[in-house]
């Protein structure tokens, strides 16, 4: 069964550093998403991406965050200057038609720890 792959599985970074979280969506999917889950809290939507541009973003997704599809297979989330409160599990997801109404596959996540 096709999978969404995320790397690394765990990243530790110092406060103020830039991090890039990487995702390889399912190959024929066109829509890409990032969610995060702070320990003990709900899974929260960050951003959706289609046709090389952001289609929707949440209040959490401020100027510190950016997303990119640098080539035909990768989808990345960059956090420019990490804060302690950015520590969370970050999930990438992809879908072949618009949004969760047509099926959504999550990756296994990257645990980001900011120290």
């Amino acid at each position, binding site marked *: 069964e096709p999978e969404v792959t995320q790397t690394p599985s765990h990243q530790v970074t110092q406060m103020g550093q830039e991090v890039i979280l990487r995702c390889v969506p399912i190959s024929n999917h066109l829509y890409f*998403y990032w969610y995060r889950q702070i320990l003990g*809290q709900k899974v929260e939507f960050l951003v959706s991406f289609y046709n090389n541009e952001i289609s929707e973003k949440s209040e959490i997704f401020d100027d510190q965050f950016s997303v990119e599809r640098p080539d035909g297979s990768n989808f990345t989330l960059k956090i420019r200057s990490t804060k302690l409160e950015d520590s969370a599990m970050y999930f990438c997801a992809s879908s072949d038609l618009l*949004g*969760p*109404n047509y099926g959504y596959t999550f990756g296994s996540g990257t645990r980001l720890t900011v120290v």
Partner: protein
Amino acid sequence: EDKVVQSPLSLVVHEGDTVTLNCSYEVTNFRSLLWYKQEKKAPTFLFMLTSSGIEKKSGRLSSILDKKELFSILNITATQTGDSAVYLCARTQGAQKLVFGQGTRLTINP
């Protein structure tokens, strides 16, 4: 943004028991309600419910949506230790995103 509320937050039962997990929400104008199982990491898809009153089944799991009373339930019969996980309920918001509940942590003891 309205809430999606799951109950109970935590549930411990013995293997073989039947459990019912609840999910309630506040808005009426959404397309789908989804259930996911989260073990160690990624939420894995269980059910998508779009129509009220139609039960979806997969083995020992079943789910139903009541759009009039604004809730959904997930039933698991003859529970096994492998059913231990966090179960997440989410509704769609617009075309782009999911709004999640806080999850129910289910523990099945042998």
